[in-house]
């Protein structure tokens, strides 16, 4: 990978002011994405992965949100930019696609209009040129009869087609970074695979970096170069895909992988589940945030919060006991107790 990352998030904290008080949805998150790299951000809902992605795009309501830290895009701190400069970056240098294909397109305009609008917002083309570019881009997404689609309204298209349109719209200005926030979650399985293929193909064609946000660790294995696993507002493991799937270090990541159905797994056997529930952001544990649910948790875990430390080159983990767990010196004491 090349030297300077396209995006470099350093100690990002995001606080929301709510009626019930201030919550910190993202707490000291750091990660970077290299040029032409695909980073997977994995976690359950509420872990802060979407908030992080919207923080990059600065889409969060500034009146109720405070930020700390830095988000460096090509060396420029996005948190310090004014709205006009941000508008020039959004959709042009960084684009985003969303999970909800039904409501992510405005029902009152044709999809063609909405793609052309994205091009013209960055003022590079006349309407005719923009229409041509839009058509090319839609063709590239593999939608059948693209000319006809451009003059249709979102509700006339299927979910898969809408997501292709969203991708065309996001990529029409040839951004350097695409943030995909669970783009396949709302789609059926075959369509999911097609959309993933499309994203990877476009990534290669446009030579861009991708941040792929998902709760599905299986998807990560397929398409990502690196992975950041998030839990309750923090990155708890950050590694290359190979290293992570070879040897997951954090108990939470291990749990996620065990919870993933595989071809070999016996359908009669219950899938592994991580016990307990994600605590509320209003009630964040003082020690390790995962301690309450962790089968290896000790008194130290409950008292002191671990930091993200480098385990091997390019593999970081936030756990007091990763060495002992990896070496098999610790057993799932409580889990066994419960099973027995």
């Amino acid at each position, binding site marked *: 990978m090349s030297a300077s990352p396209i995006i470099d998030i350093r100690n990002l904290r995001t606080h929301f002011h709510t009626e019930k008080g201030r919550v910190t949805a993202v707490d000291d998150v750091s990660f970077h994405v290299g040029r032409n790299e695909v980073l997977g951000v994995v976690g359950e809902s509420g872990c802060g992965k979407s908030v992080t992605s919207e923080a990059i795009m600065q889409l969060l309501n500034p009146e109720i949100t405070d930020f700390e830290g830095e988000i460096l895009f090509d060396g420029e701190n996005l948190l310090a930019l004014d709205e006009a400069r941000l508008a*020039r970056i959004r959709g*042009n240098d960084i684009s*985003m696609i969303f999970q*909800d294909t039904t409501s*992510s397109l405005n*029902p*009152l305009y044709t999809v063609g209009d909405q793609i052309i*609008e994205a091009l013209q917002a960055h003022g590079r083309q006349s309407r005719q040129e923009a229409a041509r570019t839009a058509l090319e881009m839609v063709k590239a997404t593999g939608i059948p009869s693209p000319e006809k689609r451009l003059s249709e309204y979102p*509700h006339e298209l299927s979910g898969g087609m809408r997501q292709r349109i969203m991708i065309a*719209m996001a990529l029409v200005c040839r951004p350097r970074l695409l943030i995909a926030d669970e783009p396949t979650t709302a789609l059926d399985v075959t369509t999911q695979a097609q959309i993933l293929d499309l994203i990877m193909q476009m990534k290669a064609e446009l030579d861009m970096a991708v941040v792929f946000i998902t709760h599905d660790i299986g998807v990560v294995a397929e398409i990502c170069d690196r992975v950041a696993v998030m839990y309750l507002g923090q990155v708890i493991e950050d590694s290359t895909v190979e290293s992570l799937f070879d040897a997951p270090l954090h108990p939470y990541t291990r749990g996620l992988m065990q919870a993933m159905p595989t071809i070999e797994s016996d359908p009669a056997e219950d899938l592994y589940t991580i016990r307990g529930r994600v605590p509320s952001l209003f009630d964040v544990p003082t020690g390790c945030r995962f301690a309450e649910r962790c089968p290896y948790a000790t008194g130290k875990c409950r008292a002191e919060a671990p930091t993200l430390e480098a385990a091997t080159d390019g593999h970081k983990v936030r756990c007091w006991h990763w060495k002992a767990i990896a070496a098999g010196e610790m057993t799932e004491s409580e889990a066994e107790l419960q099973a027995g």
Partner: protein
Amino acid sequence: MIQYVVKRILSLVPVLGVVAVVVFALVHLSPGDPASVILGPDASADDIRQLRDELGLNRPVPQQFASWLGNALTGDLGTSIYSGTPVTSVFLDYFRPTLSLAIFAQIIGILVAVPMGVFAALYRGKWMDGALMSFALVGISVPSFLMGLLLILFFAVFLNWLPVAGYAPLSEGLGTHLEYLLLPAISLGFIQAALITRITRAAMLEVMNNAYVKTARAKGLSRATVVIKHTLRNAFIPILEIIGQTFTTLIAGAVVVEFVFNIPGLGQLIVNSVERRDFPVIQGTVLLVAFGYVLINLFIDLIYGVVDPRVRLDQ
């Protein structure tokens, strides 16, 4: 689209039926004899008998209704007992000032209210929102005729700017016409503006929650484009809806405001007709205004079809 239009028009038939029945019943099912109601307590028996014949009151009620409805459908709503002229032409004479007033007031209302509602929504929870919404809350609590009286009091009595009442028809020039209509239109537009402000704010807030607004921002559109093109345009449907639904309150308000400002419109017509016991005119006026409401709402439904492609393509 054509299918949609036809469907909308067909759905009006039962509504108009109800309207017709109510208007007919108003006079014909009144206690005692319509003829004596019309002629008043002092009428002679001969006069009553003659009027009964004229009105066809000796026939069975369904038959009376049928012939009344038949006439109404061909535009014949009877003749005014007071002036002897056809009700439709009397109505049209008096309707013009009312229509001018209602349109002028509606325009003032929309021009003031839409920006106010948009700003209140954009600054939700801030002092600006609080101020605008308090203003709107007071606004819907001041009946238009009272607003008119207060304006007269202020401009005529305290500031001594006259004239504040009266009317000049459009034929005397648009400027003069609007000059006389300005205070009445403000009186009437005020409550309308307050109502539309509230609806606009609510509609904007609802639309702002939609994912496509986020998409629009993510595309790098300017704030103004996001607000106008991707929020306000979508919020327009509930705003249009309220404009249609409040047509009756607008006309009702206009009727009373005219009375305040001595404008020779439907308000005067109806008050005078009540004094003169001119029932065909009362009946015709009520029928035509209700018909106007139905037409306005049809028109607004058709606008939805233009604004919202989902409506147009349904079925």
